Structure formats: C-alpha cells, structure tokens
C-alpha cells in the first residue's frame, strides 16, 4: 500500500474524530491497522453528519409509512404519490456551519446540495423553500450574514432555474453566533420512474459525472492538521464554491440519461463525497465496488487518495450503468459538456476497493463503513426550564396603547414582510406558481393534471425552547395548517432538526422531546415523515441555539382552481375565527418584541381539534366558500387580522370583536395552536355556518371587512383603531429597513 501517507495510530484516529472504542472496532473488524485513506473513510462516514450516531435511535420514533409513501427515509429524498401517475420528491437540509463561515457560498452550496438530492431521484426540481434564522438585526455582522445568505440562495436558485416559492426568516439573539440556513426542495417525477442510489449487478460500470474534483471541503476540522500539511501557513481553504450553471447541465444530463434506461442507480456526492457514494450505494445493494482513483477527473494536481475520496467538491454524481450501455451514458454527458468517466465497477464480495494506479489504497467491507455505531447518550431536562415556564406573562402591565403595540409587532422583523428577500428570488420559472411567496403556503400547479401542490415550512424556536414536545408538535401543525389554509391536503413531512451539542444531556433531551412531539402530531394528522436532516452542534462557546425543528409539509389540491390566499379581497366579507379560544402570551412574539422575554407556558394543543380545524378549512376552501384563509400564529389574532388587511395588493380594512373573557393584550396578541381566520362572502354565510356545524369545531363570526381602518374591540371597548396604511407601512418596512 502507498507509503506516501502517514501511518495510522490511535492518536491519529482520535484526531480524526473517532473514539478509542470506535477505533478498536475498526481494528478488530479489519484485523489490521487501517491505511490513512481508510481512516479517512471511517472518520467521514462515521461522523455525526453522515452516520446520525446520536440521533438514529430517536428518529426511529417518527411515523415513516402510509398509503401514499413511495419512498421513506433512507434514500436521497422521500417520495409521495399525488395521483395521476405523479409523485413528489422532497427533502429539507441544513447548511448552517458553512453559511456562517462564508454566507454567500455556504447558502448557495446548500441550495445546490438539496437540488441534487431531488434530481438524483429522477425528479425535476420545481420549488425551493428557504428557512432562515439569524441573530438580531442591530448587529452589523448579522446584517452581513442576512444579505450574504439571501444573495447566495438567489444566485444559485435563479441561475439553476428552480423557483424559490416560500420559506421563513426569523430572528433571535440565540442565533447570532450560529445562523440557520435550511433549504427544502420539491421535485416532480412519474411515480414509476423514481431512481434510487443502488449499485446492483456485479460487473456493471461505475461512472463519475459532473464537475472535477478539487481539494474543496475536505473535512478540515478533523484531519487537515498542521502536522501533515507541508504548507501549514497557507491553510487549505475548506470552503466549497458553487457552480449553479454546471448543476443545471448536470440536471438535464441526469434526467436525459435516466430516460435511456441505461442507469441502474445514481447518488449525488454530498457530504464525504466519493467515499460516501462508493460505500453507501453498494451497502444498500449487498455488493461492493472497485474504483481507480487516478481516473477521477481532478482540478488540482497531486491530490492524494485521501483527498480524492473525501473531497466535497460540488456538482458531482456517481452513477452505476448497465454493462454494455456505456456509450449511451457517455453520449448524453458529452452533449451537455460534462465529464463522465468510468472509474470502476460493481463487485460482489461486499468490499470497497480503492486503488491508485492499480495499487490498493483502501479495502474495507462496505457494511462496516455504512454501519456506524449508534449511541443513546443520556438525556436530562434542563434544570432551568421549569423556572422559565413558571413565569406568568400576565404579571406584566398591559400596554397603554394597543394600536401602537400592534404596529410595533408588525414592525418586528420576524413578523414583517420578507419581500426584500423573496423579490431577489425567481418565483415563477417553470410557470407553475399559482400562489407566490407572501401567503400561508405557495401553491404550484401540476401541469397536465387538475391538481396542485401546496408547500410550507415552519418552526418556532421559542416555543420549542419552552416546551420541546409541544413546540415541535405545533411546528408540524402550523406547517400543515398553512397548507390546509391554502386548500391543500397535507400528504407528507420533511424535517430539519437544528440543535446544539447532543453530548449535552439537556440538548439531547430537547431533541428527544421534539421528536416525540413531531411523531405525535404526524400520527394525529396522518402525516408520514419521508425524509429530513439532523444538524447538531449548533452552538458557539457553549451557548446553543434555540432548539429549532423546521418542518416542511407538502400537500395536494385535487382542484388547482379551489385554492385560497391569506389577504382580504374586498369590503363586506364576513370574518370568522376558527379554532379554540385558549391562547397564551408564553413564548409569544409579543412578549419578546415588547418585553424582550422568552418565558411562560404555551397554550394547550389538542391534536384532534387541530385535525378537525384543518379539515374544516380545507372543506370550506374546496367548496369555494372562503375568499381568504389565514393561519393565526405569531402575533395572535390581531396580527392575523392585520395581515389580512395589508398583505394583498389592495389595502382592505376590517372591524372585528374578540371575546371579552380575557385580558385585552392576551386576546389580541396571545398565541395558540389550531386557529385560522377566514373570510366569507355575506351571501354564503349560511352555507359556511352549515359546513362548520358539520365539522364540529369551535368557531365564531368576529367581524366584517371594509373601510380603511382595522378596528378591534372587546365588548364595547375599542382597543385598536388604526389606519391600514399605517399598519402596512410598519409591516412593509420592519425588516427591509435593516437590510436595504
């Protein structure tokens, strides 16, 4: 074996991020010391990022199957049947750490990675959603991060040609040293033409396709230590740089080559690059792989086997073709001016063999690489949580001016309009987007059918912080409710779980609880989780982010014409508030924006009520009864009403009355699950009432649209009476004024 690389010792293994036990396990399975390249394989594939060592035992709690599931977790992305022979393929992924180091390229390559996950399945990406969390905007560093991340997403998605149709941006000091950049992608494929990351048929050729390999992103954190670097002073850049143009060519070439029938399996080279593909693909198929590293197209000279195996250069795929059909594969990639090089073949015997000019540099059983140890580390409820939760927000004084408090909330960057971001995103390429960003969920038609898809992402770190189980369940409910309010029936979930270090019992407790919550909500709403991503270690100097599960939901509208948007459509429509009355200021945006406090208890969640409210909203939308439907979440009923007034093309006023049995600020700004505001033309009020009675949900009429002001009263007391233009101004500029 090659002598150019250092001899492997326990110390080196520890430096590579393995534990002594793990190293022992490798020694005993191999029956010898691993080579340097082999150690690299283990270090990468047994890393938390690739192997989910700390999360796997918990993730198994999530419901993953259902009548519509075509592909659950375990492949590059999940797939759900949507009827008419079509399937949606979707997944969400994080790129938090790279985006903090280099916001533009980090976010851009995040988009690139998730797009590849979708099109390796044979699906054409039709929508991107970006869910972002940052520290507070008064810090210049945060503003730089925001502009860098948004322009990176804009550049990659726009150049590639997939519309960005939704997402979120929220702010909290806990994200200052660790922003979250989660990107979801949705693709469409014929249900019987889904491709998988398999390496079947010993003897079949293995092709490397796409961009050349450089020294990008070789996990510098572990092994690129000064000891082995001849030029320690010019530290190797580990940042990956995106190339959306090549990715677009790769998309077209992959979809075209898949149509030839010559492709057996394909996987994108994401984390741990070639090492990951050459072990995972055969491991899934009970085969092995024998590859010649010198054939890998390289951008730089003198790359070592270690570097070639572990490079995370972007826009690359590994493809297994049917023997005898190599020319077809080469032909398609040549047409798109991309490298497609046969670097090896599928073998039997279950080993990955990597060679450099014939000489073996690594030979490892693929099941050993693919089966990293799993851990169930201790969990413990944080000692401080009870105290946070015990706080009673009603011990704080009421605001003197409720109208001003509402304006302040609308101006809060988390609630304010995100148009500054999404107008930098192409939202329409593909001409499918029926509802653009700015409503509860984006709606995209499925050409050639009457159907449409509704998609949304949601997650509220504050609620999860105070009550991980219920907060995470509420995130599922909110994302699904956004889809339901648009008229879509939620069909599937993808989740991105952003947490601190799992080695701390209280963080792992948050994680475990959050998964329980997601599982409970998904069961209640009949939603399978078909894919997702775990991002741990989101902390700086011991300070973790708010625990932030981000939930992506995809729903189906059987009739694309029967959809709803959130803004009021004109005067004289009756306004109804659906869902329970019980709300809380605990963990609310109001408590944060006004008092800077993150404390209190959440309003209770009843999943059966949630299910029924969503079904009722959908029934009303699909019966064509509602003129607007809007989820009632951050900022409570007052903000939901104000958004109805100001988020459409024209301002529409509203007069509404809330219940008198609670304190005024609680009634106005209190947050609780399972609620939505809908408007109904007066002439159809009876029909709507009948439908609500049938749905057996709590609801009531609260007002009428019209005029130029938003007026909210409780009993005879007028609490809010503000010009819609003033509300709009606050909402439109609240975020943009910080970044423009």
């Amino acid at each position, binding site marked *: 074996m090659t002598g150019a690389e250092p001899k492997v010792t326990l110390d080196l293994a520890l430096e590579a991020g393995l534990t002594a036990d793990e190293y022992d396990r490798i020694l005993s399975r191999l029956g010898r010391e691993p080579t340097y390249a082999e150690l690299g394989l283990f270090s990468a594939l047994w890393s938390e990022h690739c192997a989910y060592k700390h999360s796997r035992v918990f993730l198994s709690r999530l419901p993953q199957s259902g009548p519509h599931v075509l592909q659950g977790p375990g492949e590059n992305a999940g797939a759900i049947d949507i009827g008419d022979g079509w399937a949606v393929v979707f997944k969400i992924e994080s790129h938090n750490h790279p985006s903090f180091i280099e916001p533009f390229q980090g976010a851009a390559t995040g988009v690139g990675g998730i797009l590849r996950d979708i099109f390796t399945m044979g699906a054409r990406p039709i929508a991107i959603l970006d869910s972002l969390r940052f520290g507070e905007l008064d810090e210049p560093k945060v503003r730089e991060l925001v502009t860098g991340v948004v*322009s990176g997403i*804009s*550049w990659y998605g*726009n*150049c*590639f*040609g997939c519309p960005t149709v939704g997402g979120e941006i929220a702010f909290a000091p806990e994200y200052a040293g660790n922003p979250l950049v989660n990107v979801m992608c949705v693709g469409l494929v014929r249900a019987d033409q889904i491709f998988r990351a398999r390496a079947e048929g010993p003897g079949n050729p293995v092709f490397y396709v796409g961009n050349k390999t450089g020294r990008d992103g070789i996990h510098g954190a572990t092994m690129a230590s000064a000891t082995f670097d001849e030029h320690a002073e010019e530290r190797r850049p580990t940042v990956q740089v995106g*190339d*959306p*143009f*090549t990715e*677009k*060519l790769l998309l077209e070439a992959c979809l075209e080559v898949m149509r030839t029938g010559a492709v057996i399996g394909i996987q994108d080279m994401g984390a741990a690059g070639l090492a990951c593909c050459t072990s995972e693909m055969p491991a899934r198929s009970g085969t092995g792989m024998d590859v010649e590293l010198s054939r890998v197209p390289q951008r730089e000279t003198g790359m070592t086997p270690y570097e070639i195996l572990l490079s995370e250069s972007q826009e690359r795929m590994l493809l297994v073709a049917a023997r005898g059909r190599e020319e077809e594969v080469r032909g398609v990639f040549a047409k*798109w*001016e991309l490298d497609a090089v046969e670097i090896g073949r599928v073998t039997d015997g279950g080993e990955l063999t990597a060679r450099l000019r014939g000489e073996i540099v690594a030979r490892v059983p693929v099941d050993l690489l693919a089966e990293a140890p799993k851990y169930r580390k201790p969990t413990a409820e944080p000692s401080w949580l009870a105290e946070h939760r015990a706080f009673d927000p009603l011990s704080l004084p009421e605001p003197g001016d409720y109208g001003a408090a509402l304006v302040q909330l609308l101006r809060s960057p988390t609630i304010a309009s995100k148009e500054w971001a*999404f*107008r*930098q*995103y*192409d*939202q*329409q*390429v*593909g*001409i499918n*987007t*029926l509802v653009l960003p700015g409503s509860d969920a984006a709606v995209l*038609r499925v*050409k050639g059918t009457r159907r449409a898809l509704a998609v949304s992402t949601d997650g509220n770190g504050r609620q999860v912080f105070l009550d991980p189980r219920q907060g995470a369940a509420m995130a599922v409910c909110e994302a699904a409710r956004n889809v339901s309010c648009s008229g879509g029936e939620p069909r599937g979930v993808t989740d991105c779980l952003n947490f601190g270090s799992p080695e701390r019992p209280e963080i792992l407790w948050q994680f475990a609880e959050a998964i329980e919550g997601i599982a409970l909500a998904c069961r209640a709403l009949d939603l399978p989780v078909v894919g997702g991503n775990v991002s741990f270690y989101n902390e700086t100097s011991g300070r973790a982010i708010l625990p932030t599960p981000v939930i992506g939901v995809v729903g189906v509208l059987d009739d*694309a*014409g029967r959809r709803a948007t959130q803004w009021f459509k004109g005067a004289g429509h009756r306004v109804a508030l659906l869902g329970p009355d019980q709300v809380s200021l605990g963990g609310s945006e109001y408590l944060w924006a006004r008092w800077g406090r993150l404390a209190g208890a959440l309003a209770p969640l009843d999943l059966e009520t949630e299910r029924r409210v969503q079904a009722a909203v959908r029934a009303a939308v699909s019966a064509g009864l509602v003129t607007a439907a809007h989820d009632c979440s951050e900022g409570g009923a007052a903000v939901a009403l104000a958004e109805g007034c100001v988020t459409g093309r024209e301002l529409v006023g509203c007069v509404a009355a809330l219940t008198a049995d609670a304190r005024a600020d609680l009634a106005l700004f209190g947050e609780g699950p399972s609620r939505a505001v809908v408007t109904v033309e007066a002439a159809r009020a009876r029909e709507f009432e009948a439908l609500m009675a049938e749905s057996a949900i709590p609801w009531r009429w609260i007002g009428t649209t019209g005029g130029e002001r938003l007026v909210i009263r409780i009993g005879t007391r007028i609490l809010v009476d503000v010009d819609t233009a003033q509300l709009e101004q606050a909402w439109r500029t609240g975020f943009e004024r910080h970044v423009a």
Partner: protein
Amino acid sequence: MRFGVVVFPGTWSDCDFHYVVSEVLHQPVRYVWHRERELRELDCVILPGGFSYGDYLRAGAVAGRSPVVEALRDFVAGGGLVLGSCNGFQILCEAGLLPGVLTRNECLQYRCQSSHLVVENVDTPFTRGLRPGQVLTMPISHGEGKYYADAETLARLKQHNLIVFRYAEADGRITKQSNPNGSLDNIAGVVNPEGTVLGMMPHPERASEAAMGGTDGLLMFQSLLGSLVEDGSFLKR
C-alpha cells in the same frame, strides 16, 4: 406559425415558452439546440430566459457567439422573426443583432417582480395587435437588465421608433420608481429597424394564462399569429 425555442446550456425559460406555444396557442413548436445552424423551416425563433453559460463573464456574452446565433443572421436576413426575452435579449445585444447592452441592475440585486410596460411601438409583428400607450403587466426576473446605449444610439432608437416597451406605472406614466433596474430611459424592449427582431427583459410567457396571474403576454403572441394571417410580408422566403 412554426416556432423554434433555442436551448443553450443554462437556458431555463425554454420549457415555459414551449408550453405556451404548444398548449396555449396550439402552434407547432420545436426545441432548437444551440449548435444547430438550420433554421429555415421556422417562422419565429425564440431566445428564452435563463443563465446561458452561467452568464459568467457578461450576461449573454458566450451564447451570443454560438452557432445558432450566427445562423440567426441569415434567418433574420431572410425575413424570419426573432423574439428574445430576458437572457434572450441579452444574447441579441451581445451578438450585435440589437443595439445596446444590458448591465447589472442599478440596485445591484436580482429582481423578480411584476412590472408595467407601456407600449411605444405597434408597428412590429409582435405588437401590432396592441394600442400605442397601452399598459401591459408582465413579470421581470433578472439581475442584469439595465439597458444602456450611447447617446447616438439612443437618438437613433428614438428617431426610428425602435423602443417598443418602457417600464411605467400602472397608469402608463414613465417614472423613476417604475424603473426596476435603472434602464436608460426606462427602456424594457427594443426592436431592429426592420421590426423583425424584438428583445425585451420581461417574460411574456409568464403572463400568458389567467391562472398565472395575467394574459398580457399572450397579446404579443396573438399579435404574432395575427400578423402572419393579415400580412404575408412577415412570412419569410
């Protein structure tokens, strides 16, 4: 009318134009690969939006020197019609088939939004079904759409009425606020002196169905089809 939609590496509005021509207008249409030189059987060639060759050096620069664009010169000389939208407009300018150049948006950001266009020239096959001064609503989606030409060229454009669309308010007033990218004189689209090559930054294909939020783009396609019927002179050969 036989349409061709050109596909460069990096083009992305190709499928959208193809869809509108075949599914909305029910006209024959085929994709034209960027290496093709044979365009004679077509009546109208569309250069769609996208990021041809990544737009890495300058938008449209590399595509503007490709075989199909070279072939366009003969095609145009033979009376063929060419519509370039978004990246297609950038390519036509880079190729010298239209005067001027498109540069980075003045705000230095990409912009995807609805825009209003006032129609200045209805003497082209693309606009003959419209009224002078008519206001159209169409989306834009670009990072490099700021039209620039030197003073002499601008004077010539005006003198020969070669400016077809200008960014405007909903009521047709030309204002600085309605100019989304800082284009010279709010220029959104120009045509060659023969009226047969139109370049525009907005996306008519995204405004060709009511479900997509408007049909003003369709008016241009209908003008095109109308021109074929009414006036044989727009037929080439």
